[in-house]
């Protein structure tokens, strides 16, 4: 079985390393920067398990690949996904651009016709955030509200997307309608798992609500915010004033789900702290393994639509991604549940 990985930035190179021990027979790596491709291919070859062939590809073509992982900068995922689906490959996209995520969902019919899986948002957020939302929702009879928060970025492309998101309007799902909100508005102080702690979070053009709404269409409210400083907000409308960091970690996500159990209303809060590039890579590698093994549902969907989030979190835990629940002070016996 052949996997084609397109994009070897901070996240893509971690995915390649995570896949070096996978059960695929061939790993084909591509990056638009030849030096990067050469370096990553060489380093992955050095640690690859016996029997795994690692090759570099000069073109982003996914010809002959059973699974294609798109870890390149947002913007070209939808067209590449369409080409790959037409060629009969399963596709895993790590795009976190809301417009692109909607375009990817638009390929759902094609994926179904081809009986292939198109995984939309298999990174940190959306990705791990969606698995956490699904995990927490499993403890409730009915989900009313989902609020996601994130802080930190992966590599430079992710940082640029983060900068871009803060100046643009984001969508919130409110009472059955999409409502557009200005980026940088709606300050909310969110506590992330230690040692990240409290961060001011703001609305932005984030993709999480689009992914989550498809899994929780009956929820009254689905929102997403990201952490930003005063400087981030002040300079969000300008071009990036300095080159982004090679890795913008550590970061964290926090997923707050409010719903009902029996007659009572409960809020359950889950989170994770990790370097976004590392955690996103773990998610993508795990998803690739499951897609390759035929364990993923056909059609386009986010990870919140996948069955058994507990099994997924267990597998991610073995890859080093730890999740936590917030234990409320009002109900200390009921761990992770604030009444």
């Amino acid at each position, binding site marked *: 079985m052949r996997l084609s990985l397109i994009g070897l930035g901070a996240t893509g190179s971690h995915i390649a390393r995570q896949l070096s021990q996978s059960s695929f027979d061939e790993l084909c790596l591509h990056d638009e920067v030849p030096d990067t491709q050469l370096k990553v291919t060489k380093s992955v070859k050095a640690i690859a398990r016996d029997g795994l062939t690692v090759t570099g590809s000069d073109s982003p073509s996914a010809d002959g690949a059973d699974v294609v992982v798109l870890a390149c900068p947002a913007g070209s995922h939808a067209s590449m996904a369409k080409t790959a689906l037409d060629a009969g490959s399963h596709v895993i996209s790590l795009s976190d651009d809301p417009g692109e995520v909607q375009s990817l969902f638009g390929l759902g019919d094609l994926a179904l016709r081809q009986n292939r899986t198109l995984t939309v948002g298999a990174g940190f957020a959306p990705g791990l955030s969606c698995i956490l939302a699904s995990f927490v929702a499993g403890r409730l009879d009915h989900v009313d509200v989902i609020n996601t928060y994130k802080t930190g970025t992966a590599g430079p492309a992710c940082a640029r997307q983060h900068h871009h998101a803060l100046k643009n309007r984001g969508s919130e799902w409110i009472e059955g309608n999409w409502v557009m909100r200005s980026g940088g508005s709606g300050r909310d102080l969110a506590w992330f*798992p*230690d040692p990240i702690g409290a961060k001011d979070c703001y609305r932005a053009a984030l993709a999480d609500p689009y992914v989550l709404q498809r899994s929780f269409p009956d929820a009254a409210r689905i929102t997403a915010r990201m952490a930003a400083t005063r400087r981030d907000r002040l300079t969000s409308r300008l071009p990036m004033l300095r080159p982004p960091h090679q890795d913008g970690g550590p970061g964290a996500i926090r997923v707050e789900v409010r719903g009902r159990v029996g007659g009572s209303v409960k809020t359950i809060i*889950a*989170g994770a702290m990790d370097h976004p590039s590392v955690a996103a890579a773990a998610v993508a590698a795990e998803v690739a393994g499951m897609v390759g093994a035929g364990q993923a549902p056909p059609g386009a969907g986010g990870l919140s639509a996948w069955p058994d989030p*507990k*099994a997924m*979190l*267990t597998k991610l*835990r073995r890859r080093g991604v*730890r*999740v*936590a*629940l*917030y*234990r*409320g*002070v009002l109900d*200390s016996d009921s*761990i*992770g549940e604030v009444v």
Partner: protein
Amino acid sequence: MLTLVRRVSTALGLAGMIALLFRLRGRGGVPPQSGGWREVSEAELS
């Protein structure tokens, strides 16, 4: 002008008195000593 000065000084004086009252009489209470984040164990995921 004199009226403005008198009003401003009255307002500042009142604000100071209220702040002093809160400072001396207020009971901040004890911050929460329990709660926080707890890692999900593998057993909870099975």
